[in-house]
């Protein structure tokens, strides 16, 4: 029973963090209808940003959070205007975006490899507290709790942005129907560019905590993070950022339960869940049912 409780609490914490890992990808898809295949590489960049701050400037890795936001703006804004409007005008923007973002992912990985080498890089455990905090009698490292607290703040902030601000309303309008939003006078490109920047910033912020949650950061971890994020957002609901939270929780709890009771199959969890969800409820757990007239 204690093992089950530990797996459940651990799964919730892990799942909340992975909600943050996936939520930027879902926001970008929801607004742009494009899969950012470089999502994991942007997470990886966030991890290396925190590593640089910690190892070279002696700063606490949490300063990687504002750096990730700055990086999101510096990279995301020009990148959006350089490629997305052109892609949107093409005959097959979704397929072309696949190819384009795959290329961007390869470039980021190659450049990171040149700069940092192939080694794993970690952040000091003590930077986020070297103790453990217990909930319901289950102790988890301080770094987990900090990662979860930041994840909750980011996800909550995104919720408030989407539900309480004019830009957020416009973002949701674009998510619902891009062309209709344009006809109502919404500056679609500007709003979508902001959403893209937010998406990349959230990815970068998640990256700051990746060395704590997955052991280390290295140039090659991006692909796996993109795949996991993709599975999480499909489980939750593709195009609905807040559905990612449900997807993350299902992923986290499923993974930790499998680690506890059948460890060798634990990496199958996201993909097995993805298959089941796609077969039973193709729109995801929080997706709206599709009705054919």
């Amino acid at each position, binding site marked *: 029973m204690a093992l089950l409780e530990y797996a459940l609490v651990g799964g919730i914490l892990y799942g909340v963090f992975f909600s943050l890992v996936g939520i930027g990808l879902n926001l970008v898809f929801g607004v742009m209808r494009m899969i950012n295949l470089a999502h994991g590489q942007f997470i990886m960049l966030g991890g290396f940003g925190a590593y640089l701050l910690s190892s070279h400037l002696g700063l606490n890795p949490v300063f990687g959070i504002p750096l990730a936001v700055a990086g999101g703006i510096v990279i995301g804004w020009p990148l959006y205007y350089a490629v997305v409007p052109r892609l949107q005008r093409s005959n097959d923007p979704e397929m072309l975006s696949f190819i384009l973002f795959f290329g961007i992912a390869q470039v980021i990985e190659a450049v990171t490899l040149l700069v940092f080498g192939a*080694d794993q*890089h970690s952040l000091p455990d003590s930077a986020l507290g070297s103790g453990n905090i217990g909930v319901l009698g289950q102790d988890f490292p301080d770094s987990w709790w900090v990662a979860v607290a930041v994840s909750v703040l980011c996800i909550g902030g995104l919720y408030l942005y989407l539900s309480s601000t004019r830009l957020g309303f416009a973002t949701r309008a674009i998510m619902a129907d891009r062309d209709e939003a344009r006809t109502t006078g919404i500056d679609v490109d500007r709003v979508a560019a902001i959403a893209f920047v937010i998406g990349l910033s959230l990815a970068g912020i998640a990256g700051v905590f990746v060395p704590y949650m997955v052991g280390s950061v290295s140039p090659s971890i991006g692909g796996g993070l993109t795949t996991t994020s993709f599975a999480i957002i499909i489980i939750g609901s593709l195009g609905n950022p807040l559905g990612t939270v449900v997807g993350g929780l299902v992923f986290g709890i499923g993974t930790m339960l499998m680690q506890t009771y059948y460890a060798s199959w634990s990496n199958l969890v996201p993909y097995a869940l993805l298959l089941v969800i796609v077969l039973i409820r193709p729109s995801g757990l929080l997706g709206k049912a599709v009705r054919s007239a």
Partner: protein
Amino acid sequence: MRKFLKHAWTACAAGAVASGLALSGGAAQAANAPSVLTIGTLYASSGPFAVASKGQFEGLQYWADTVNKDGGTYVKAFKKKIPVKIIAYDDQSSTATATTLYNQLITQDQVNILIADFGSVLTSVGIPLAAEHKMLLIDPTGSGANFFTKKTDYLADVSIPSSTVWPLTLGHFLLGQKIQRIAIIYDSNDFDASQAETLKATLEKGGVKPVYYHGVPTSESNYTVLLHTIAAQNPDAVIEFGYAPNDIAFLRNLSSSGLHFKMTFTIFPGQLLDLMTKNVGAKALAYTYTYPTPPLVQTQKVTYGPNTAAFVEQFKAAKNAEPNFLDVAGYNTGLVVQDMLETAPAFTQLSFHQALMDMSGKTTTLLGDFKINENGAQLGELFSVGQLVPSGNGNKMVVVYPKEKATGTAVYPAPAQ
């Protein structure tokens, strides 16, 4: 990103070699000798095996540079020295890419000698291809037990013991210490699973049944919940078999979990100590047990090539960097190839293999005794059990078992850090 060294003369060289074999007489052989020996290999510049693979490749390149400075390596079949040229492709740690590239080395580049990439995962796909093309695969560090289950003339594990024999000393150490409650967690791949199986069998033979015995995916990166599950079994010793990224995650999670075991063992602190110290921290690594490998342990008396200490000095002078085990393994692979070429009477794959078999049991290099069986498994170069003991700001390696190699005694139970 694929980096490769292209050569245009391979077909001519292969033709020359084939003609040379058809002729008799030393002069005719020398006349038909290729101008350069081509050695085909793969390395990974990215992905989970990049660090280890690049180390192994660097060691092999260093060997090639060394012999070329001396005019090349002596080839008995042609009775002359011939320079070596390494043709290397980047498989990016992908078995799919490695399959294509091994095929390219064999069929397009028609290399004279084929050397596998680092580790069991990237070697596994080369073994059937080499056998199919009747090409001897020189296997530096692919040690998965499944590779060596039947007699073959086309596989030779040269720089690392078969993983089935790695944990034998560890098993005997655990039994000798009378540790009864042992947890084993391993990655589900040939390299780690075969070690786990051997250790389990060794322990069970000694009357100890592991209290926890589970595999995890090779991609596992978070051990926090797993460690808690293991702790629930109250083990005294926790043995983790994984690759370097797994060991890093495992040891970091253990350090931050607040859990403590009397003994913790992982593989890669003994092979990539600098990398592990950088990521895990000296404090968290303290009292961890591992397989200490050269250059952390030294082979003094050798029958071929420099001993470990001499190699370390030469490597440092040439590369301005401390070698790690993978550098040694790559260099040792070159040395074994060199010895093979010096003794093989004919320039054929079968003759190469026979030369290796003849060297077996009679050769000692900087990695230790070279001893392969008819299945291609390396049974020499056995690992000891070592423990990292705090020393100054870091840790020093102390060999604790077997007795005849021990440089100190085990600190058991390990004090909490």
